[in-house]
């Protein structure tokens, strides 16, 4: 088999310069006439975003992983690895702690504890070509379903597998399908919710960019089971590459006869349209999403009736998210038993998490349910960079909460996370170290929900605003006695009296940070001190006279002329002029490290 040069080119890869690698590789192959020697594959994200732009070389049955490449490295890789078969040591991924280098992708600790059922194909297939997807078993699940199964059989398989919705709430997918199937109505819809709005979550983007056909195949199977002839993918406007790849995949699927009339001669008809969102977080909520498709302002309505009975245009509508749909073909091919053996009692299969924030190996990880947070953060994620201490991990986006160090051995599944005061959500996992202020994080999330609240329920509209104002005050050093209790009180009320998931969970970031990090709140309120040195009003920048080398860099870069001194002498910050932008800290040369933050601020 010819060696293959696989270039990771999802949005993150492209942001890090993958386009230049692609161009260099193609130009070099053309100029040297090496078309017969090797293939080039431009794929979606490979998961280890930290290493972008990265290249995999597939030869002799192994995948060699090269990381953080520059365009000029590509020539070396082609000449040495592809043509001669030698591995280039300096491009290999290495453990930031032990400095040990790894050749093969499977040996890298980041990949070892993962179970990549959905993401594995991102490495193998070029999303541009449907035949790539088909080469690795794509659309064989659809073929099997249409030829061998009746719709009810499909529903039973999904029910038996125990698959639960990956969008957040975790409703049993098979059961949802059954309700939609039984609902009365001539025309039914299936919808793919690709409005991935949780900040810090991007698994759906990665699937849509890297393997769009898996989502389409899942939807077609679902539509057949439910008896729907029309499908819609509601995708976030902020994901241009996903929209592009999906659009192309749709055209190809039509051409191959997997969509349209009389699919694979089964007399089953099904069409899919793409609808782009317009930048409203609340449209990830299913009833708001439906309103948005109907051309209305995206405001949730009360349920019941559930969309499965009365959804789009008041017709039965089955909504699942991207990751849920992508699981469907796998379950059909490998069987419900195979799937239900993975995971815990109540949560089956794998879940993709985006491991981001203060972590060494940032990226997308797919793990079996029931794995502990410690395994994800330390074994897969490689721990916290720069020798800092772990403080908390935030899961579930603005609806979730912060989980502290004491709960690191918590097995991750739907119930476990809910008990800890957080939730699965779509699977964002943001790691925070000692430099993250928990009050500031709570304030950040409330700022988010406050702006994204659609305004329908007064408790959410006013409650989030009120909580934000209190948190804002605390971070400014104007916290008062009783603020914490007041926050808890408002939080519980917003939770109880809001209509949709956004409001019901809006207080989670506040309530969990109070529950686990009360000390930090008290330090802000009573001592006017920010222990993590984040809250601007509670810190000052200082130059340590012992360490200052008098290099003048800070004074030159200071935007407010607050730093004065003579070259080679000690510099000083005028606290009255200082606007606390932090530029001096970033420009102070590492050999001096003289700029420090202190809290409480100097008067």
């Amino acid at each position, binding site marked *: 088999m010819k060696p293959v040069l696989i270039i990771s080119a999802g*949005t*993150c890869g*492209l*942001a*890090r310069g993958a386009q230049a690698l692609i161009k260099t590789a193609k130009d070099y192959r053309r100029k040297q006439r090496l078309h017969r020697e090797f293939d080039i594959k431009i794929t979606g994200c490979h998961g280890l*975003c*930290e290493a*972008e732009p990265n290249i995999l070389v597939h030869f002799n049955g192994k995948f060699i992983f090269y990381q953080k490449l520059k365009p000029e490295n590509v020539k070396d890789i082609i000449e040495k690895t592809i043509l001669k078969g030698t591995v280039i040591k300096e491009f290999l991924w290495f453990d930031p702690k032990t400095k040990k280098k790894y050749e093969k992708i499977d040996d890298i600790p980041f990949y070892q504890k993962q179970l990549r059922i959905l993401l594995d194909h991102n490495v193998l297939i070029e999303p541009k070509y449907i035949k790539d997807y088909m080469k690795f078993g794509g659309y064989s699940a659809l073929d099997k379903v249409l030829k061998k199964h009746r719709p009810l059989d499909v529903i039973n398989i999904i029910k038996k597998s125990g698959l639960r919705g990956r969008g957040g709430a975790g409703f049993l997918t098979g059961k949802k399908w059954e309700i939609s199937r039984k609902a009365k109505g001539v025309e039914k819809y299936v919808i793919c919710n690709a409005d*991935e*709005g*949780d*900040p*810090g*979550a*991007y698994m759906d*983007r990665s699937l849509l960019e890297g393997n769009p056909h898996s989502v389409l195949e899942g939807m077609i199977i679902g539509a057949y089971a439910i008896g729907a002839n029309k499908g819609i993918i509601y995708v976030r*406007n*902020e*994901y241009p590459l996903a929209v592009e790849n999906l659009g192309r995949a749709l055209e190809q699927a039509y051409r191959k006869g997997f969509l349209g009339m009389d699919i694979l001669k089964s007399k089953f008809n099904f069409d899919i349209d793409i*609808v*782009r969102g*317009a*930048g*409203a*977080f609340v449209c990830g909520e299913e009833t708001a999403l439906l309103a*948005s*498709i*109907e*051309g*209305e*302002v*995206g405001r949730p309505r009360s349920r019941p009736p559930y969309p499965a009975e009365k959804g789009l245009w008041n017709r039965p509508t089955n909504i699942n998210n991207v990751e849920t749909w992508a699981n469907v073909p796998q379950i059909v091919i490998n069987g419900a038993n195979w799937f239900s053996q993975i995971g815990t009692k109540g949560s089956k299969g794998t879940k993709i998490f*985006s491991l*981001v*924030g*203060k972590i060494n190996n*940032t*990226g997308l990880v797919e793990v079996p349910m029931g794995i502990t947070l410690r395994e994800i953060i330390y074994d897969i994620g490689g721990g916290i960079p720069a020798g800092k201490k772990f403080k908390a991990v*935030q899961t579930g*986006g603005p609806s979730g909460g912060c989980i502290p160090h004491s709960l690191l051995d918590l097995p991750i599944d739907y119930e476990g996370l809910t008990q800890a005061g957080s939730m699965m959500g779509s699977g*964002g996992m*943001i790691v*925070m170290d000692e430099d*993250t202020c928990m009050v500031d*994080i709570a304030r*950040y*999330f409330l700022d*988010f929900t406050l702006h*994204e609240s*659609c305004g329908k329920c007064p408790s959410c509209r006013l409650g989030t605003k009120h909580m934000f104002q209190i948190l804002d005050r605390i971070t400014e050093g104007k916290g008062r006695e009783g603020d914490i209790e007041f926050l808890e009180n408002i939080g519980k009320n917003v939770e109880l009296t809001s209509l949709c998931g956004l409001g019901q969970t809006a207080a989670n970031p506040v309530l969990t940070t109070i529950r686990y990090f009360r000390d930090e709140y008290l330090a802000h309120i009573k001592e006017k001190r920010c222990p993590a040195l984040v809250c601007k009003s509670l810190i000052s920048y200082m130059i340590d006279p012992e360490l200052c080398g008098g290099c003048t860099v800070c004074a030159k*870069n200071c*935007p407010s002329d607050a730093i004065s001194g003579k070259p080679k002498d000690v510099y000083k910050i005028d606290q009255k002029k200082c*606007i606390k*932008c*932090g*530029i001096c800290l*970033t*420009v102070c040369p590492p050999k001096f490290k003289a700029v420090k933050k202190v809290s409480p601020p100097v008067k």
Partner: protein
Amino acid sequence: MKRVENIFLRYKYQKDNIIPILQNIQKQFNFLPTEVLKYASQRLKIPLSKIYSLATFYTTFSLKPRGKHLITICMGTACHVRGSTAILNEFERKLSIKPGATTKDMNYSLETVNCLGCCAIGPIVVYDGKYIGEFKLKDIGRILKGRA
């Protein structure tokens, strides 16, 4: 208005396609001009108040003209813990505008976005559609170069 008419035609003058129609108008004009919205209201028989409510509810839409260059700062959680607020503050100070506004010379518009899903390489700034990862405070000068 002929260009607008073509957009209507593509969406078959259907009222429920108003959001994609507005998206296309914005693509054409870079914002939603009042006259065009009034025209759309007449042609599609949708009350102007409803179009206005859509245009203000969804954050992609802008009722004000936008500058030659668009600077978008990701304010997602991962970018936040890596210091995006300081970057936003510095852009605000350098350009003397708040997010959602455009400089007087119509050169730059500053916007924020909730998350671009490139969390691994945050903090992220998008300059005219180009994603810049691991953005540092000192990169701001480089971006705004060619301008006093």
